[in-house]
């Protein structure tokens, strides 16, 4: 078997999950930090309706940019996100099957499931799970969602997030993501290098901080207005995503002090919780009486100690 290209791998994973009842969605077209933030995950995991979906989500983390100079770190990487709601009892076997489907002969490799619980404070979301290690490389984040938007979830979804760049670098045995064959005649670097270089420059050096603060305020107000006076939830959620991305930009510009940080995260979180509440009320009226207020004030579940949580970085960096 010839080595699969980047897009071969994407096709194979989409086909595999399509065969298991997933809707194959396209990426969400607003900037997000992770596949979890796309409404196909954030909103669909709420409520009592089963749902299965898979999609590639380009995920932007401005602070992770390296001007295209680091072989493993990217400003924007691609996640293949799978949501199985509710999680089937054989979910791990299904997951292992997906690795076989992209050409990994498990008999010749070492797979470990290492504890790694996930939390996204800005989304009021957390879950229990593992990082899946293949020959010492983290290739997937596997999470049983417990709470989202401050709500205990009716059905527990399994979220599988494949880091496509590191997975493909592994499959193709290259040391730099830029050397990944996107197709048999085009390398990842040819497609994406310039984007990494230019956006790193913008994110770290050029973005107008004052304008970003204004934009943050504007999007926040728009979200609040929509939630308070209208019944449209999805446009309101877009405003949350805008705020979150602007927050990340401000962060990469070094414009947010540590003390401010907590406050800004709280502002985004408040919007996200409001959206989740409105969504549940709309899609599942009997639950409307329920409220996530308690969840917002309840103490956080304990999480592993570490650096301050990046609100949009639930799923680890690209490689290593």
């Amino acid at each position: 078997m010839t080595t699969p290209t980047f897009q071969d791998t994407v096709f194979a994973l989409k086909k595999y999950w399509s065969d298991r009842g997933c809707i194959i969605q396209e990426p969400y077209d607003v900037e997000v930090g992770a596949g979890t933030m796309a409404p196909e995950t954030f909103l669909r995991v709420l409520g009592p309706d089963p749902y299965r979906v898979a999609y590639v989500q380009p995920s932007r983390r401005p602070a992770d940019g390296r001007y295209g100079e680091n072989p493993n770190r990217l400003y924007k990487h691609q996640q293949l996100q799978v949501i199985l709601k509710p999680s089937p009892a054989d979910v791990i076997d299904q997951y292992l099957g997906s690795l076989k489907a992209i050409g990994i002969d498990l008999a010749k490799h070492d797979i470990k499931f290492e504890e790694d619980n996930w939390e996204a404070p800005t989304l009021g979301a957390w879950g229990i799970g593992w990082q899946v290690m293949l020959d010492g490389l983290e290739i997937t984040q596997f999470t049983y969602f417990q709470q989202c938007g401050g709500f205990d979830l009716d059905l527990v979804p399994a979220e599988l997030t494949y880091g496509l760049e590191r997975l493909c670098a592994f499959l193709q045995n290259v040391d730099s993501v830029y050397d990944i064959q996107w197709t048999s005649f085009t390398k990842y670097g040819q497609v994406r290098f310039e984007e990494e270089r230019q956006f790193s420059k913008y994110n770290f050096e050029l973005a107008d901080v004052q304008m970003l603060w204004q934009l943050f305020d504007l999007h926040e107000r728009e979200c609040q207005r929509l939630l308070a006076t209208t019944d449209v939830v999805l446009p309101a959620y877009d405003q949350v995503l805008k705020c979150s991305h602007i927050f990340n930009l401000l962060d990469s510009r070094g414009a947010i002090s540590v003390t401010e940080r907590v406050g800004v995260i709280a502002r985004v979180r408040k919007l996200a919780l409001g959206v989740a509440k409105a969504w549940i009320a709309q899609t599942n009226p009997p639950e409307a009486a329920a409220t996530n207020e308690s969840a917002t004030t309840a103490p956080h579940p304990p999480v592993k100690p570490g650096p301050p949580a990046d609100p949009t970085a639930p799923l680890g960096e690209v490689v290593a």
Partner: protein
Amino acid sequence: MSLPFLLEIGTEEIPDWMIVPALNQLQDMFQALLDQHSVRGKLKSADATPRRLVLKAYGLIERQPDTEDLVPGPPKSAGPNAAAGFAKKLGSTPDQLIVQTTPKGEYYFLTKRTHGQATAAILARELPNLILKIQWPKTMYWNGKGSERFIRPIRWLVALLDNSVIPFEIGGVHSGDTTAGHRLLGKSSILVTHGDFDEQLRTNGVLLSSEKRREKIETEIAGLLAGKALRVKPDPDLLHTLTYITEFPTPILGGFDSQYLELPSEVLITVMRHHQKYFSVEDSKGSLAPYFIAVMNTNADPDGLVRHGNERVLRARFNDARFFWQQDQKKKLEARLPDLKNVTFQAKVGSYFEKTQRMVHLVAELGGSKNAQRAALLSKTDLTTDMVKEFTDLQGIVGGLYAKAQGEPEPVWRAIYDHYKPPSMEGDIPSTADGRLLSLADKWDTLRSCFDVGLIPSGSRDPFALRRAAQGVVRIVVEGQVKFDFPGMGEDLSEFMRDRIEYYFRDVRNFAYDVARACMAAGWQDLLDLESRLKRVQAVRTTPDFEPIAASFKRIKNILRQANYTDGAAFREDLLEPGPEKDLHAEINRSAGQPLESRIGPLRPKVDLFFDKVLVNAPDPTVRRNRLALLHSLLQEFSTIADFSEIVSENKE
């Protein structure tokens, strides 16, 4: 009949560090269950892998013994109708009643027989609760809101009493006689019996015994390194982790380019250990060698792909570390000082910049050298480096290494390098005097400033690890022989420190608790003095005269308290009665200034005789007051060493 029992809880991968505590709880609860229901049976073994908790027991009986209770009824005098009513209520007939004489007269009694329940029924009823009662640090639900919680989803259950399945259900999973093997090496459905359980698991790629897994790792590592002039860097914690993260561990040897050895070994080891769970390898001189040992959760690496993959990941991580090192050198530590204004130490306390300023002052106040003060100034600047942001465990160490690379004198960089030591009750304190002073100042400042804003640990809540900081203070002062008088200590902190000091001397240094209490009652703010008093009192504690003297001191204290004695009335030698009273006084004077050890022996008979022959509570108030003054002075003589009334007699009547 004596029956064997087997329980296996099959789960998805449980975090390694939670497995042993959970297994301990499970086995304790299970033995208690057997005992409580009188079904006999003893636990034979308890073992676990990341995917299963297994208990084996033997000697259970098939059913509980029948029991007979004698139930008292009405008095005989109440008559046959009352007796018949009583019998009927218990589902019996009057002819089953007997009459027995009790202290209160003659009464009807009925023998009530209860059939023992079948052990299988008891287990089927109790096991689900027992399993779900295991306490985990963090649990999840997986069957929808409000469903049962466990550490990870339960996927199968084996419960066998003799050859029968004990039927029960948890979250839709029914117990049975079928287990699952290793995810990749075994079958997913395997019929088992008591006799072949371990062997079936073994042939399906699971070593159930953690001891065997540990041994396999150790033996095979030795095999990998045999004849290579290399040795593994011992790491018991990592070995434990790997034992409980695998069902079938197999170590492999990998290597890395020796050019990375230019990086400090501390950084390389941290990358290997914390990020990749690899053992480091040393050459015969103890220097880091360009190899590592990874432990797979499978049986072989036939094509070398696993080794290759691990080497690739490590290379990427080392490249990152080298990049951080080079980047960080572009800005010297001193130039990073202003950046600390943006690093919060604690929201209510302020930034690390402010903390650094306080530490510099404190080091100076404690008599620290210019070097120690310089080290304090630079000590926290590494928090702004990429290296520490990536490898937080290396804070301090990275600062020390950077200071060294930037030409700071050895006393300065070493002090920075060491200033997070000691890491816990174990582990070394800083190796140099400057380092000890810096570490002490850092911890004391943390304690003082947190207590100042009301961040006081309570119960198990200690988010800022203040107990550990306090323990560090005590260890550095005592074990490093540092002069320290707890400057600027408020009341709450004083109480807190007192507890930690008592804990240290009692539980870490193993001084008897009453000795610790007695000596601390005589003052504890000079820890070096306290330690020397403790040693002396502990030494005389075993001499025959000590406890009687201590008992006498307790008596003296009581007498003074009952008499509401207040210091003041001048002692008059001329009021002393010849005999025991005068003798006691003479002995006190004679031995004044001598060490405790030589005073107790001669003093004891004089004290005993005094209490035997002399009436303290003399009718003449002047004499009485004088005698109280004599006793008081005796108490005072020793009060600078210890409060002996705290000593608890070992041979109490």
